[in-house]
């Protein structure tokens, strides 16, 4: 009887322990235990979405994503064999031996996760890992780490931008990151060994990754490369500070090339000698005074308003005293008799000011606004400057005089290209684009060829007359830029030489910005090319420095797109009377 009682008591005690444990498990914090149970033997894997390519107009990738791996060390396992392992890894992966050694020994005590290398091509990484495992090393593992590759290096690097370790740091990569990045997927499953082989018929989920959408630009890769090379050569030859050039399809407004020099290799954006300024598109973010190229806008506006005509006669004095200062020309002359065409061909400031006297400041500003000056082109380049154009009602007549020949206002390269293109496109301004189709920027703005707008700025006759006058600029005898001619073609263009403003003091620093903008064939324009060279170290103007660069680029683009000479009659407008 006694034995039975003791037995019951013992059983009751054991059962009450079980009961207490049950209450503890189920009553106190059941969820954390359930989660621990689920985590035991379950595996999850983030499925990286592939970043969308950035393509040129022909579908050739300018930026490309390929699979890569990060090599990770667990110092607890690797510290013992660190020197041998580091030698092998640094040999195979071409990485620094001492940094590898540090990683393998653990940069912090007790660390169990150290990056050995990042963005290693997948095949190389797995081959190396196989070799390590064959040699009996342990503690090295691989994780997905996509690589961004720029196959053409510096081609259009200033527009495309580049990637940091984990995020885009500039250009289209950053502006269109939402579209390019895609959405990562996730897979979870029950597994025998944490990862790897899944247990069949056990719970598993799969959320497929959504890859990024490719971004197609209007850039022509080969032409962009050529433009950059020619421009870089000019910068070296003339010891200039920097230069930009743009090539635009006259009819569609598509920008075929937009080059900035100095540039950088997008695969190595932090290479020694690359300044922060070199990594942005200077042509879009920096303003400068356009100089005499702007005269074609003034003159075509005057013709459109019926206030001037190409053969109109002007008496141009050696200098022109205006309210506060004297306006002079770049060349010394006495009293000369120039036609309006002659004023353009010889690039006379005084002549332009005299012609522009027919305009009040608001009238001139209204036209310049319609040409797109003073407002952003909104092509998808972040940090674009709108330039500076004083509103017409606040503009003094002295400022207007200077604006008429391209000083006291500032622009960016694409604005000016689109403005010159308006003359080429028979007076209709086509809004420029850098993106084929459409894309949404990080600021929520839709840009691209789908949003192209066309607005008439000047009449067809005014544009035609201006183009005829611009042809005279390249005349070997009467013009100032014979070096810009393309053999066999009728080319219209205009030189520009302007004083540069030093951003530190806000004053003219004595250096110049020389430029050349033009189009060909002049009687049926297909392409507009605009070249700007900042602060050349040699004496020269738009005709002698930017002109030959223009000629080279224009000759190449005409041949590349198979535009035959039109055999039109060259302009015979008189320059003098």
């Amino acid at each position, binding site marked *: 009887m006694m034995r039975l009682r003791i037995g019951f008591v013992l059983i009751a005690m054991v059962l009450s322990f079980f009961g207490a444990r049950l209450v503890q498990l189920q009553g106190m914090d059941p969820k954390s235990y359930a989660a621990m149970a689920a985590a035991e033997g379950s595996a999850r894997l983030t499925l990286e979405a592939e970043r969308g390519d950035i393509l040129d107009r022909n579908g050739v990738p300018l930026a490309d994503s390929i699979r890569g791996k990060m090599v990770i060390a667990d110092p607890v396992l690797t510290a013992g064999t660190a020197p041998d392992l580091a030698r092998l890894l640094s040999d195979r992966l071409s990485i620094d031996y001492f940094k590898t050694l540090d990683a393998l020994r653990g940069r912090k005590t007790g660390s169990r996760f150290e990056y050995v290398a990042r963005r290693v091509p*997948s095949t190389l990484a797995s081959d190396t890992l196989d070799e390590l495992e064959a040699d009996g090393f342990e503690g090295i593992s691989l994780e997905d780490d996509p690589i961004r590759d720029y196959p*053409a290096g510096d081609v259009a690097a200033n527009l495309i931008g580049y990637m940091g370790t984990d995020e885009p740091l500039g250009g289209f990569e950053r502006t269109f990151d939402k579209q390019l990045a895609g959405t990562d997927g996730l897979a979870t499953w029950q597994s025998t060994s944490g990862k790897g*082989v899944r247990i069949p018929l056990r719970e598993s989920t799969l959320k497929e990754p959504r890859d990024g959408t490719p971004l197609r630009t209007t850039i022509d890769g080969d032409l962009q*490369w*050529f433009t950059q*090379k020619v421009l870089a050569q000019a910068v070296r030859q003339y010891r200039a500070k920097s230069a930009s050039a743009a090539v635009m399809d006259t009819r569609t407004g598509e920008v075929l090339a937009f080059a900035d020099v100095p540039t950088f290799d997008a695969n190595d954006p932090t290479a020694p000698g690359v300044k922060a300024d070199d990594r942005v598109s200077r042509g879009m973010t920096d303003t400068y005074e356009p100089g005499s190229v702007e005269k074609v806008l003034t003159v075509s506006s005057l013709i459109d308003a019926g206030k001037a005509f190409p053969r109109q006669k002007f008496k141009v004095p050696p200098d022109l005293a205006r309210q506060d200062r004297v306006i002079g020309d770049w060349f010394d002359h006495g009293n000369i008799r120039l036609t309006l065409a002659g004023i353009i061909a010889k690039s006379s400031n005084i002549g332009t000011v005299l012609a522009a006297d027919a305009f009040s400041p608001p009238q001139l500003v209204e036209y310049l606004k319609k040409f797109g000056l003073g407002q952003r082109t909104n092509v998808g380049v972040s940090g674009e400057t709108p330039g500076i154009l004083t509103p017409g009602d606040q503009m003094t007549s002295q400022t207007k005089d200077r604006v008429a020949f391209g000083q006291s206002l500032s622009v960016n390269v694409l604005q000016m290209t689109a403005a010159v293109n308006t003359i080429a496109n028979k007076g209709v301004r086509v809004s420029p684009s850098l993106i084929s189709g459409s894309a949404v920027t990080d600021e929520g703005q839709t840009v691209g060829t789908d949003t192209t707008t066309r607005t008439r700025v000047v009449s067809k006759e005014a544009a035609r007359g201006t183009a005829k006058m611009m042809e005279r600029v390249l005349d070997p005898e009467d013009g100032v830029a014979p070096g810009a001619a393309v*053999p066999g073609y009728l080319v219209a263009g205009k030189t520009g030489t302007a004083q540069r403003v030093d951003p530190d003091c806000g004053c003219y620093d004595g250096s110049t910005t020389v430029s050349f903008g033009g189009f060909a064939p002049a009687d049926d324009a297909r392409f507009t090319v605009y070249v700007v060279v900042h602060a050349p170290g040699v004496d020269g103007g738009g005709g002698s420095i930017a002109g030959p660069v223009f000629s080279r680029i224009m*000759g190449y683009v*005409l041949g590349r797109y198979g535009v035959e*000479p039109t055999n039109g009659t060259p302009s015979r407008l008189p320059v003098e009377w």
Partner: protein
Amino acid sequence: MSSPVLQPRTRVSRLAQEAVDKARLTVVPRVRSRAPRVPFVTLVSLVLVGGIVGLLLFNTSMQQASFSASALQTEADTLAAREQTLRMELDDLRNPQRVAEQAQSMGMVIPAAPVFLDLRTGKTTGVRTPSTPDQSIQLEPPAPPKPAILAPAPTVVEVPAPTTTDPTTTTEADTQATAGADSKPQKNKQARKNRNR
């Protein structure tokens, strides 16, 4: 309400009682089952064993399939990575810079202006301009000048002109000069190599 229902029921049970009392009960002979039990038991056991073994085999084959699935997945990943690496190499080969370097080393020059040839008439349009080597574009910026310590001025040793006009001597001198000229670029190459390191 309850009484009309109750009455018939009592009557029925009374009648049933009488019938039971009157009935004669006899013993029914027990029917002996002749069907053998063994086949049935065997069948059931076979179904059971078959089911269990089948399930085991099924499970094993699924496990096997899972192994081969993950092996195939790994292989597919490797091949996809290989394809991408090859595509990257292809893109690198297509790099205009590389193509231009090859073309220029073969003596090709990008012309200043295009000329078109009509294959039907055999006539050209455009102005034919000669393309000269000085039109070729600089593909790489020139190397920065070396500091003086690395590029010392060449040592010039004046050798007195040979006085004899013996043809053999001249030939020998020529050969020596050629040899000298040959060895010089090699030295330069060596120097460049060193600098690159």
